[in-house]
Structure formats: C-alpha cells, structure tokens
C-alpha cells in the first residue's frame, strides 16, 4: 500500500510551516486527542490527500514537530505520545536510509504501510460510526408499540387420578383392619441373645437329653406367636452353644422333638 510519496522529500518549506502552525493549534487541545493515532490522523488531514496517498514520512515530521512544540511550551505529553515520537523517529530514519540487507525485521516501507493502514482503518471506523449514528434509530425515528401487552403467565395445575387409584384407595380404607402396620413388636419377640443368656444359665443342669422346648420361657409358651418366636430363638441359641462345644443336639426322626444335653468335658 506504500506508495512513492512516502519517500518524497520531507516537506517543502511551505509544508513545514503549515505543519508547525497546525501543531501549534493542536497543542492547545492535546487532551482532546484519543491517543497518538488520533493525533496522527488529525495531522494527516493537513496533507489534504486521500489517506491512501498520504506521506508517512511527512506525517512523521509533522508529529515530531508537534512534540517539539509541546516541549517548548512545557506541556507534559503522556508517555504513549513520546513512545510514538520515538518510534516515528526510528521509522523516519529507516525510510530515509537505504535498506540494510543484513538487518532483521520489517522494512521501513512495511512499517509505514502498516501505519497508513491503521490510519485508514481508524478513519473508516469513524466514518462507519458516523453513518451508524445517522441511521434511523428506535425511539427516535421509529417506534415500538407504546402499550405493549403483557403476556400473562397462567399456571394451571391439573390433578389426575385413575379409576384404579380410586378403587385401591377405597379398598385400602375398607380392608384396613386386615392389615397391621409393620412395626417390630418387641413384646412378642424373644431374641436369640435372650435365649442364649437363658440357656447358658440352664445347661449346667442338663446332664440328660432334654427337649429344647422345655427351655422356652414360661411367658412365651402359651401365645402361639410368642411361642414361635421363642422356639426359633431357642433353637438358634442351641446351635450356637453346640458350635461352642457346650452342648450336644440330637433329633430322633424328622419332626421329632429336638433334644440337647450338656457336653461333658473330654478328659480321657
């Protein structure tokens, strides 16, 4: 994008004077600039050419003149203006000196072209912003409905039940007496621990075969429910004692009474 004008003689005297005058006018308003790029863009306008044909070299001169002017007027420039000045001074030297083939990095021409691109792009965005703001705008040029109607949110709860639900509910009510809620009724339960404890106390006397039903506690031998629980617990306790080697168990035939007796210590 860099064209030959970049390498034109920096400025005619006239151009330099104009630049200085412009710089003096601008310097008063240094706070009005949105950074060095904005200042460069403003300075570039004094060249009165298309941004694509702008002389970056001339622009660098203008900028440096601006910074000089600011110094003489003892205006403190923000750091980024000074950084830009240093960079432009560097760019200027690159543009003026013949390129050194040994040197690394982008050429002065590339750098100048990019700066020109940046300026053109910034200008383009400014123009676009202006066009955008000039468009018809909602609430200024065209309007939305003045009385929007609100959408009501209606939450509707629908209850459902099936005929089966209904019948089962009724059946449950009518047959409630058939059921007992399942609660562990401790009163009619004789635990194995209880049976074990009871039998440990009794087996000392069981020298002969005895029906285990005789070990049932009296309170549990009448009520069939309690009797069932006590029988189961006593049987389990008997097995436990047999395992411990304390008793022997026998049963004469299937469904015959289960008997046990104390196991004598075998000492030969």
């Amino acid at each position, binding site marked *: 994008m860099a064209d030959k004008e970049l390498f034109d003689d920096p400025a005619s005297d006239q151009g330099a004077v104009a630049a200085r005058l412009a710089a003096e006018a601008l310097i008063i308003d240094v706070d009005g600039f949105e950074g060095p790029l904005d200042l460069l863009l403003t300075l570039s306008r004094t060249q009165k050419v298309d941004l694509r044909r702008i002389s970056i070299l001339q622009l660098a001169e203008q900028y440096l003149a601006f910074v000089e002017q600011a110094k003489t007027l003892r205006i403190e420039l923000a750091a980024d203006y000074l950084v830009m000045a240093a960079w432009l001074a560097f760019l200027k030297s690159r543009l003026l000196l013949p390129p050194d083939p040994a040197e690394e990095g982008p050429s002065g021409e590339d750098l100048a072209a990019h700066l020109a691109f940046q300026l053109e792009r910034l200008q383009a965005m400014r123009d676009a912003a202006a066009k955008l703001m000039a468009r018809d705008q909602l609430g200024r040029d065209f309007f939305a409905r003045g*009385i929007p109607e609100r*959408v009501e949110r209606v939450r509707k709860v629908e*209850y459902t039940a099936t005929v089966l639900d209904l*019948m*089962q509910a009724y059946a449950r009510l009518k047959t409630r007496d058939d059921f007992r809620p399942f609660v562990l009724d401790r009163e009619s339960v004789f635990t194995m621990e209880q049976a074990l404890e009871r039998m440990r106390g009794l087996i000392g006397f069981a020298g002969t075969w005895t029906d285990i039903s005789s070990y049932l506690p009296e309170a549990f031998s009448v009520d069939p429910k309690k009797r069932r629980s006590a029988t189961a617990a006593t049987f389990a306790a008997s097995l436990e004692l047999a395992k411990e080697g304390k008793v022997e168990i026998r049963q004469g035939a299937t469904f015959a009474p289960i008997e046990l007796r104390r196991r004598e210590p075998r000492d030969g």
Partner: protein
Amino acid sequence: MDDPQQIAAPEPGEDSLFDAPPMAEQERMVEALLFASAAPLSLRDLAGRLPHGCEPKEALVHLQKRYEGRGVRLVKVGDAWAMRTAADLSYLMQKETVETRKLSRAAIETLAIIAYHQPVTRAEIEEIRGVSVSRGTVDQLIEMEWVRFGRRRMTPGRPVTFVVTQEFLDHFGLESARDLPGVKELRAAGLLDNRPPPGSVPGPGEAEDDAEDDEPQSEMFDE
C-alpha cells in the same frame, strides 16, 4: 389526490404552508401515532399531533375499517382511541403452563368414599377414613368439579351431603358410580394391594394427615 407525489409525507414545519396530506397518508399517520403512543389518544390529541388541516376523525374511520377482523383492532377507550389485540385472540396473550399432579392421598380417599357411599356427609367420610377431613380437600374436589353438594340429610343438624358429578364419571370412564367394583370384586380381580399403608394408622383429629401423605402414595400407585 391520487398523485403518488402527494403520498410522500410533508416536511415537518412546512405543513401549515401546504394542504393537508391526503387521507391515505393521514390514516398512516394516525396508525403510527396510535401504535407508538403509551396511552390512548383522543381526537384532540391526534389533531394536535397531526399536520395542520388533518381530519383525524375521518382517518380513524378508515383505520377502523382497515383493522376490522384483523389480529388487532382499533378500539375506543372512553373518548380516546387505542390499538388492542382482538378479543378472540386474547388467549394468545396468556402463556399457560399446565402442571399435572397426582391427587393427594387424602383427596383420592375422600373421593373414593364419596363415590362409593354417595350421598355421604362429612361426618360419614371422617368415620370411614378415621381422620377428620380438611375443608381444603373437599373444596379441591368441588373445584375440580368431581364432587358437588347433594341433598341435605334429613337427620338432626340437616348435614349437607356430597355426591360425585358427571365430570367425575366422564373422567373415570364410568357409566354411573354404581359400576364401581366392590371390595370383594377388587380382591377377586387381584386389584387389592396387599401392602399395608405406610405409617401407623392415625387417630381421628390428626388433620395433618391430609397434607402429609402425598409422597408415600405416589410410590404406591406407580405402575
């Protein structure tokens, strides 16, 4: 008046120097004003906002005709005019969310008792359920239109009775409440759930029962 050049809106400020815009244009203007205005506009409001010489009254007549049968209408509100959604489309302005919920155990039991024993008094329902029936439960069933009041019982205190409705029968697909199978038939059909109800049987007067028992119920009826 039919010159298309004239359809263009006159420049603001210039209007008094020229004739009033054509009626078609006035109609557009009134349309835009009514659309954008935050409040209904009276004839005087309209006349004050339109270019000089306009006839808002006539424009309104045209506009009203134009919106006849449309989704929005031009309506008169007091002595002012506004655009409004056509009444038959007002349901579009509601976003209905339907939530389906299982009826609570208290409600389904109460409903079952009413269905099987109708006409039945509140005292009888309570006797069968073994708990007091909260007002909310019966109210809910009445609101759902599954239960209504029957005749008063000719006993001391003349208590009201409850019966099930035609809606109830429709919902449950029954010809009449008499078609509901009895307990014996339910058992024979294997429809009796032999699992005992959860929790202990509460004594009468424990009204919280009505509110609390929902969760175990759903577990029971899950297919």
